[in-house]
């Protein structure tokens, strides 16, 4: 199962949207106590973002739920005069703070890393921004699309010079950055074992987005190549059509090509000397790809990929979300977990890709759900909470 390495660790998640909150969820999955800190009366903007339960008409956000599952929730304005001492109290009790405010903002409200370190020298602070804390672009604005183009990911998905680059679907380009964020925190906690000190992690969304593409990006200084993926031209990759779905078939290595040829019933055209080795197949791909297409297009996706895989050639169906929901493979591995949210009703939620026992998830918190529990434990009393609430600091 997922290692429960963060049992006993308290993480404050003072971030919004997808990147920071997903990092918080990952840490909750490792057993951390994650406390989401939200603006009173308002909360994370994703609370108002679809998908909602359309049958029900409730306005509970499935997006907010997904990224904030298993967290506790408090409301607080740490930057307010009355909120600051409460926040510092909370900081003292914590191991990690995740925050995503604009560069410099934390300093202006007296919550710089140095200030936080005074109350908790062992605190790890992860600061997430689009372009980092420093540099001429630090104040540039991004949404998901523009963030994707900042890190070189957008350029990769060009489908030919005449068509605009197309973005990665879903929340993928942001969740991957959230995963990177969580890794940085664990690395800092690892070092803390020996150093005894906290750490301030400056994570730029742009740099986090560059890292997975670094091989393609470094091709420029190292080989003078500005590489671009030309899907239609690349040998053996690129979806092929089957009767009921698209399929990917990848005879990457020689043995896999031989497997493909066997799966296709050893057609005579495959004996052509031009197709013998990978390099020449690549050069003659306009001849190879259509032949494979011809074969796949009269078969079901399952027939294509199962016969390919049986012969040692990587292949699979291009899965739609409904096919994923019905997947026998995911069923066998208990990948979807039964959850229910007050307004969402019961639904099956993707858990984690780690084999074994899944975390026992708790519903994402309603706004301020754990105010009493968390703040009373810090030493405030009901009167304090009432007063802070009345001035909208809590």
């Amino acid at each position, binding site marked *: 199962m997922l290692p429960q390495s963060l049992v006993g660790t308290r993480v404050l998640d003072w971030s919004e949207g997808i990147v920071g909150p997903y990092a918080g969820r990952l840490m909750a999955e490792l057993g951390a106590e994650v406390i989401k800190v939200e603006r009173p009366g308002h909360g994370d903007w994703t609370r108002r973002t*679809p*998908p909602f*339960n*359309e049958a029900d008409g409730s306005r509970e956000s*499935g*997006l907010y739920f*997904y990224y904030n599952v298993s967290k506790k929730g408090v409301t607080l304005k740490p930057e307010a005069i009355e909120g600051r001492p409460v926040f510092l109290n909370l900081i003292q009790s914590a191991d990690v703070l995740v925050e995503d405010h604009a560069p410099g903002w934390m300093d202006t409200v007296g919550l710089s890393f140095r200030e936080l370190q005074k109350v908790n020298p062992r605190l790890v602070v992860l600061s997430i921004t689009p372009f980092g804390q*420093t*540099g001429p672009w630090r104040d540039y604005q*991004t*949404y998901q699309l*523009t963030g994707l*183009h*900042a890190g070189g990911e957008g*350029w990769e*998905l060009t489908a030919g010079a005449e068509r605009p680059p*197309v973005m990665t*679907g*879903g929340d993928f380009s942001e969740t*991957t950055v959230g*995963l990177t964020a*969580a*890794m940085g925190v664990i690395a800092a906690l690892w070092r803390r074992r020996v150093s005894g*000190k906290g*750490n*301030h*992690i400056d994570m730029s969304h*742009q*740099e986090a987005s560059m*890292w997975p*593409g*670094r*091989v393609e990006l*470094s*091709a*420029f*200084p190292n080989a*003078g190549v500005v590489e671009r993926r030309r899907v239609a031209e690349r040998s053996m990759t*690129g*979806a092929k059509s089957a009767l009921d779905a*698209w399929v990917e078939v*990848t005879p990457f290595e020689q043995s*896999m090509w031989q497997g493909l040829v066997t799966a296709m019933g050893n057609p005579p055209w495959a004996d052509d000397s031009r197709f013998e080795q990978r*390099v020449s197949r690549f050069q003659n791909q306009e001849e190879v790809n259509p032949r494979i297409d011809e074969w796949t297009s009269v078969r079901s996706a399952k027939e294509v990929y199962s016969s390919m*895989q049986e012969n040692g050639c*990587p292949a*699979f*169906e*291009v*899965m739609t*979300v409904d096919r994923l929901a019905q997947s026998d*493979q*995911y069923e*066998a*591995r208990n990948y*979807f977990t039964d959850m229910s949210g007050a307004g969402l009703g019961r639904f099956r*939620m*993707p858990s984690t*890709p*780690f084999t074994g026992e899944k975390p026992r998830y708790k519903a994402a918190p309603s706004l301020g759900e754990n105010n009493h529990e968390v703040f009373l434990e810090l030493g405030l009393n009901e009167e304090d909470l009432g007063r802070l609430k009345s001035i909208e600091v809590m």
Partner: protein
Amino acid sequence: MADVMLDGVRILDLTFNRAGPSCTAMLAALGAEVIRTESFTRVDSNRMRVASLDKSVISWGTDKSDMEKGWTFSSINMGKLGIQLNLKSGGHREVIKRLVEVSDLVVEAFTPGVLEGFGIGYETLRQWKKDIILVSVNGFGKGGPHGHYRAYANIFAAAGGIEELTGYAGERPMGFVGRLDSVVGSFGGFGALAALMERERTGKGQHVDVSGAEAVTTLLGAPMVDHMINGRVAARDGNRRPDLAPHNCYPCTNPDEPSREEWVSIAVATNEEWLSLCIAIGKPELATDPRFGDLASRKVNEEDLDRILGDWTLGLGAHQAMQLLQAAGVSAMASLRADDLFQSEHLRERGAWVEYEHPVQGPRFDVRLPWIFSDGEGAYGPAPLFGQHNAYVYGELLGMLPEEILELQAQEVVY
């Protein structure tokens, strides 16, 4: 204490190609000592991946004297040590045992069952070292009807659902390559770090096994959740999003280099941003154009919107358009290419490119780790030459005598 984050951590790396090696490369950059095994019986294909002289074709050579020239290999495997070890020899087991005894972690990305086939599955490793951590990265995870299936980046993408969601409406889905290997490898890296931390707490090792397909599905987010709650089946739709308009990439012309392909991405969510954009591009009349008055109408007239913006961007370079719009508070970003990123003043100032020396390829550049720590550094160095660290690992680390190593070479164990 050394200044690297993973000081003192030693990792045995049995991976090939890109997904597994991406995981271990990050751990190496964090400062772990990563020992990578290779053999003449299976040379990593990326060792021989080179570009043609005119840079138009990237392909795989077959000449083994070219094994040190592949810049793809050199980037993927930066910072690692390299030894020869033939996992098909039978004699490898005793060597692996000795390596495991001095390692914290083993990383592998074979199809499930292959490691056991080599006689070095988790149960065996655990007998050799009780608290060993094994990290396995594979296509579909252990178990289930597809547990034994083989996968690469584009297979993870297809099986996990991201390929279906990417591309133009009604057209062939967009395939994924290298980057996706790294993303899946990152889940392995996450598991590795988590397992190291847990061993501190409990004294126990474990087997961390990651399914690449499930990793992708986990990262989809909204469309998967929408289906589970509402039954909706999301379809790819180019650069369109229901909550933003304009939201697309527009063609630009670099005045200094008109033949250079350039695009600028623009994303507008609010009416305020739309107003700012209209003024910034010198077309304030658009702000009162009823076709574009609010998000709903901008969505209805999105084709007109894209055409108007595209006409404007065509007259400017991508960086020019971006700077102009950013100055007005509009989210615009040139579609940055490798050369843009390497030459970026912003990234230079942040030290985002690192440089080191490769014994054959000379000065190499690569991307710095995606974090700047106030305490602790990364570690960057060349990928290993084939068998480069045989003497260090076998001789120094394992204490073998020269005769022992020669014998292993004669038996094609160190091969």
